[in-house]
């Protein structure tokens, strides 16, 4: 196990270095510059040039890269050009929202996707199965922003049950009650993902139910409920858990639209705004962190296979 982890970590570090070069170069290839965006429409070229020099953006690109990578190795991702704050602070501020949003979304995904997928599989071919599968297809097809806007319209604007947008930290006044700001966005974000997990669970359950050991278990007279939970679901979850890892990582990076619609101070919105402002240090920092997240989650998912199925060879 230790050898496997060391080997995979080495591969992950090599990927990280390659990713850092790509991130840096691609971002600087985009035309446009932060100095002009910051100074506004009325700025003269002389003012833009002066700010560019002050920000160190007129250094050769390769020098800028080594300077950035060297500092990143020491945990310093630079300062946001726009906010004039350390990038780590900007990311940390957005991370709370994004991680909580992704976590609550995952709860909805698990609470809805897995049980409904199991029910659909158990009633395969019935009107219930067909109805649920059709609904899942529909929900997976609806754009998240559309779901978000309708949730806001109904539950915030018309019924007034939940806040329409924004998110004060749980460390601010209001404490845990501030999580109510994340209910509508997490539901919007969960809709397509729960539908996908539902379909995945159903398909995986049906695959496993055809295995010999399931037939044996039934032949031994074990109750259908026990066969479903202990023999089919547990093995079917192997595929589903693998999908959870990637879904969680994807939720962090793909929540851009939801964060924009609900005006959430998350990482996704920060990176999009930073691209529009050409705030290079923030874009680079956020993408680097997301790459790290993917690599770590990938590693954890691989390791978790071992626990879920002892037959899996880690080498």
């Amino acid at each position, binding site marked *: 196990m230790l050898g496997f982890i060391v080997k995979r970590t080495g591969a992950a570090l090599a990927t990280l270095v390659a990713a850092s070069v790509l991130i840096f170069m691609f971002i600087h290839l985009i035309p446009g510059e932060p100095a002009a*965006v910051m100074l506004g429409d009325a700025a003269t070229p002389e003012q833009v040039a002066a700010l560019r020099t002050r920000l160190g953006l007129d250094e050769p690109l390769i020098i800028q890269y080594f300077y950035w990578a060297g500092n990143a190795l020491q945990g310093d991702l630079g300062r946001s050009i726009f906010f004039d704050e350390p990038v780590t602070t900007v990311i940390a501020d957005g991370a709370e929202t994004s991680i909580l949003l992704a976590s609550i979304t995952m709860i909805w995904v698990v609470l809805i996707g897995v049980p409904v997928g199991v029910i659909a599989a158990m009633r395969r071919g019935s009107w219930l199965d067909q109805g649920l599968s059709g609904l899942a297809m529909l929900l997976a097809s609806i754009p998240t922003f559309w779901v978000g806007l309708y949730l806001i319209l109904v539950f915030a604007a018309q019924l007034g049950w939940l806040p329409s947008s924004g998110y004060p930290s749980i460390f601010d006044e209001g404490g845990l009650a501030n999580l109510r700001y994340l209910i509508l966005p997490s539901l919007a974000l969960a809709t397509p993902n729960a539908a996908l997990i539902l379909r995945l669970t159903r398909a995986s359950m049906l695959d496993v139910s055809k295995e010999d050991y399931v037939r044996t278990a039934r032949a031994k007279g074990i109750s259908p409920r026990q066969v479903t939970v202990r023999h089919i679901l547990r093995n079917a979850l192997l595929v589903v858990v693998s999908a959870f890892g990637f879904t969680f990582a994807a939720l962090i990076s793909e929540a851009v639209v939801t964060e924009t619609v609900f005006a959430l101070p998350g990482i996704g919105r920060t990176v999009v705004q930073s691209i529009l402002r050409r705030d290079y240090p923030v874009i680079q920092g956020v993408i680097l962190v997301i790459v790290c997240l993917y690599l770590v989650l990938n590693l954890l998912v691989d390791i978790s296979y071992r626990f879920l199925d002892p037959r899996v060879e880690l080498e």
Partner: protein
Amino acid sequence: MNAVRKTRSLMLSCAAVIALAAAGALPAGEAEAATLRYATIGEPPSLDIQMGTATLATTIGQNMFETLYAFDEAGAPQPMLAEGETISEDGKTIVITLRTGVPFHNGAEMTAEDVAASLNRWIEFGARGQTLNASSVEATGDNEVTITLAEVNGAWKSLLAFPNGGPAIYPADIVTAAGGEPIKPENYVGTGPYKFVEWRPNRHVELEKFEDYAARSEPSDGSAGAKEATIDTLQFIPVGDVSTRVSGVQAGDYDYAEYISGDLYGILKDDPSIAPHISSAPIFGLMFLNSKEGILAGNWKLRQAILAGLNMTEALQISVGDAELFAAEGSIFPEGNVWYSDAGTENYNQNDPEKAKSLAAEAGYNGEPIKLLVSTNYQQHFDQANVFKQQLAKAGINVELNVTDWATLLKERGEPGSWDMFMTHHGPSPDPVLLTFMNASYPGWWTTDERNADLAKLVGTSDLGERQAAWATTQELVYEQIPAVKVGDVFSFDIASPQLQTTWERAPAFPYFWGATK
């Protein structure tokens, strides 16, 4: 089975936390009633309003920082931190007497040294400081500063009153330490009715009432006169999506939301859960023409051909929508403004493809592509560019759109060889000298002998009548040489909670909330 039970238990616990959180919704208490929540179009850049011209930075910053003069409702500059002034006969030396007993948010009283240091920094590094053309600013008494101009500048008072990229007054030690760098949030210290509390990126900028604010004795009049912070706390919250800003006001989460799309006006104007506020200060679209390089440089006939072929009413209808939100007005300044003039406006909104064709032929134009640079960040720019392309095609003028994002456009427009025209817009301006196309170093680079002569007349006197006449001549020249094409006046509209009572009906260029109640 245990694992399943544990998982189920964990799920139920998480669901319970969410349910508890939902149930724990805070009741709207007194503390909330004293806070005004303003949903902004985005995150502002630095609030050091001397250094940038972003509208949002001014909207927020004007609550904390004040200038020596401020505009009244009619757009005339009135004393704010200044008490009065005397001007030398040659018009180049201005001695300004300052108010006494005006405290900064840090408790120190404003002095002539603070004002001189602030003005000197603005002149050296500020976004619009060089427009003043001052050779020196000195503290010449305890409550007196003297500004010496290199050349007579009839716009001096307007320049000192305009908060957007304007000379906000800060404590001397803060501006000295900052130099050409933007002042950091912890040093946002001004004399305004609100003081800085915190800036949490992507969450909010929060200001609170400055209890020791020294208000003027004159009644409130636009940004001039007395200001009373009747609401304890102001929160400016970035809400990028327009639908969310609307729903937020309808739901009572925000008290005010800016820049609502024109196509929503028809739906929202009769909605009892919101109060629309159409802007009193129009923004006008501009299509700049390249005066330095390319097919349009110095080719007045071809420029006039382009102008003749355009139908502004159609462009405004398509890009803005509701007729209450635009005016096909050729005068650069809106009717009622002291700078309003109809000189040259017979050439505006001609919608005459035949005339355009004939002028283009006279200009020796043979269908060469004319590159129009436009960004997708501003939907109106993009819509107008598309309409213009179609209209000019009818006159045989071949426009090629170069569509980019705004940051790319800002870079490309600085390269004279890469474009012939570009789309932008202009906010309300208090004086013709602040118009971007009057600035010879602004992309477009309009600097003909005729323009230079007109500009010299415009700044060469402080007499309003003479300046108005000079501006009328300049506007006529604008319609002859066409450094930029005015598309038309667009009145943005904001929405507010019906409970919010402001001192204005139509939203000012930079909405303010002193004197407001909710």
